[in-house]
């Protein structure tokens, strides 16, 4: 495996060519959204400048070029998640929309009163709220897998859960956006399938940082957001098994997703079009394909290994700071995400003082209010890393935290 050269990769990201508040930018919020390499930006520009027209409708040259670009991007994303077929790759706005698609188009039609939908205390709201909403609409019940003290999923109650009712859906993330925990999806998939349930995997936080292979994982649906994988905002992918997608009703209806429309009846188009109503995010798809080219050229295994190193380094340096509380599992069982609190200083104050020193971190509940309730805090600070993160940024964070301590001494 080729080691990652973050310092070289960093030069591909124009955003770092600036100072913030007169300081070098230490961008430690990649878990919220990643920065963009020039290669991706140029691919989108090129598409707009040379090949732009609406897809699938025109019979002229530009429309054909645009259609080809969109479908090549779909094929690129098929390879990225190792899906059996490109028809199973549905372009959506983001992981949230992908998960809503499954909750509505599968959950609304298949859940029945008394059924169980199992999520976890670690879920992002995007894989929690849709299930809570649709379950309550159908009279089904939502159950939460609890966490251990270490911030890892506690699977000891699975047998009891199986006896409580008909488990129809198991929905969890592969990597927690808040604690960085890498979840034991293989065990949960096996358990879900024993129950006859579908397994819905939120890979938004995993896809940027590790190889995500839908066939190896054995999941039934998988969602990811392009903007976290160096891609543009406004595009994400839902992958689903053909046999499930074919049986499902559509989520959004309208143009492009139809086969025929009559005054009294409409029939749906073939996969993936049935789930892609309206004009596709064409340039975004082209950008996303270029982004995963970029990420794969750097090497997903190398990224994962590098982030483990950074997480270990950050956990070590942060532990030196008096009054710090670190959340989540040890570095070898987490992605490049570190959540912490500094004494009783509110994370918002921490983040603001850090910002004035050029350090960007996330402060808040990270769209994980059930997890915050479990941790007994209103919010945490979160520093997260990616392939362009260098150790100096973590050092800058540590220095910044010492300044926070001084202000609140």
């Amino acid at each position, binding site marked *: 495996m080729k080691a990652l050269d973050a310092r070289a990769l960093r030069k591909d990201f124009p955003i770092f060519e600036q100072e913030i*508040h007169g300081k070098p930018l230490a961008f430690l919020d990649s878990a919220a959204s990643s920065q963009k390499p020039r290669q991706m930006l140029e691919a989108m520009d090129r598409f707009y400048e040379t090949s732009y027209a609406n897809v699938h409708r025109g019979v002229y040259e530009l429309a054909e070029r645009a259609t080809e670009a969109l479908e090549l991007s779909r094929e690129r994303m098929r390879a990225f998640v190792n899906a059996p077929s490109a028809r199973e790759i549905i372009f959506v706005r983001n992981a949230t929309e992908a998960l809503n698609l499954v909750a509505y188009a599968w959950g609304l039609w298949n859940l029945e009163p008394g059924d169980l939908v199992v999520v976890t205390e670690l879920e992002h709201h995007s894989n929690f709220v849709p299930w809570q909403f649709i379950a309550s609409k159908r009279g089904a019940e939502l159950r939460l897998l609890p966490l251990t003290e270490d911030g890892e999923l506690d699977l000891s109650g699975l047998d009891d859960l199986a006896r409580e009712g008909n488990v129809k859906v198991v929905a969890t993330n592969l990597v927690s956006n808040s604690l960085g925990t890498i979840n034991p999806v293989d065990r949960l998939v096996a358990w879900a399938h024993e129950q006859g349930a579908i397994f819905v995997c939120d890979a938004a936080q995993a896809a940027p940082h590790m190889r995500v292979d839908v066939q190896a994982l054995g999941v039934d649906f998988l969602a990811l957001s392009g903007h976290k994988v160096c891609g543009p905002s406004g595009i994400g992918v839902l992958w689903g098994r053909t046999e499930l997608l074919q049986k499902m009703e559509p989520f959004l209806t309208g143009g492009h997703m139809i086969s025929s429309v009559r005054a009294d009846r409409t029939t749906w188009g073939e996969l993936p079009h049935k789930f892609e109503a309206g004009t596709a995010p064409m340039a975004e798809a082209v950008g996303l394909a270029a982004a995963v080219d970029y990420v794969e050229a750097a090497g997903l295994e190398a990224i994962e290994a590098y982030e483990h190193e950074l997480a270990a380094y950050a956990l070590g340096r942060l532990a030196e700071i008096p009054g710090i509380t670190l959340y989540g599992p040890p570095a070898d069982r987490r992605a490049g995400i570190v959540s912490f609190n500094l004494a009783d200083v*509110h994370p*918002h104050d921490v983040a603001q003082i850090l910002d004035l020193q050029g350090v960007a971190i996330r402060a808040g509940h990270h769209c994980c209010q059930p997890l915050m309730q479990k941790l007994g805090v209103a919010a945490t600070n979160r520093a997260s890393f990616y392939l362009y993160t260098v150790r100096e940024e973590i050092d800058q964070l540590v220095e910044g935290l010492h300044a926070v301590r001084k*202000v609140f001494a």
Partner: protein
Amino acid sequence: MTEFDQLYREVILDHYKNPRGHGTIEDADAEAEGQNPLCGDEVSIYVAFGEDGETVEDVKFSGRGCAISQAATSMLMEMSKGRTASELAELDKDELLEEIGVPLTPVRLKCAMLGLTTLKVALHKAKGTPLPEGLAGFDELDLI
């Protein structure tokens, strides 16, 4: 002075560390709870009126949150005592901002206004007057 010395100037930190009017009032004449889901700030405000049923005789707050939200609410407690409910229900936010005296980004403005908005909701609720525009629709207040 560095920028964060300005933002977290002494008076803000003093109010944050030694909040004025911190506590609760049992059988308060007016009370409301406000939250800022952005950073998890929470403030509850309790008001006791004097014999005229109008003058604020005592006002207290409880809650937790960032320094800006808690300090601003503490300052608001000092500003509110002895004034009338109708006056406070219409209080111009600039009066509080002047007291805070530091420039705030739009995000932090929400933190700073949490106490005032919650106080206004409490007073309007107690008097049965309609919430002004911008606050309409808030009961258990969610600012965002």
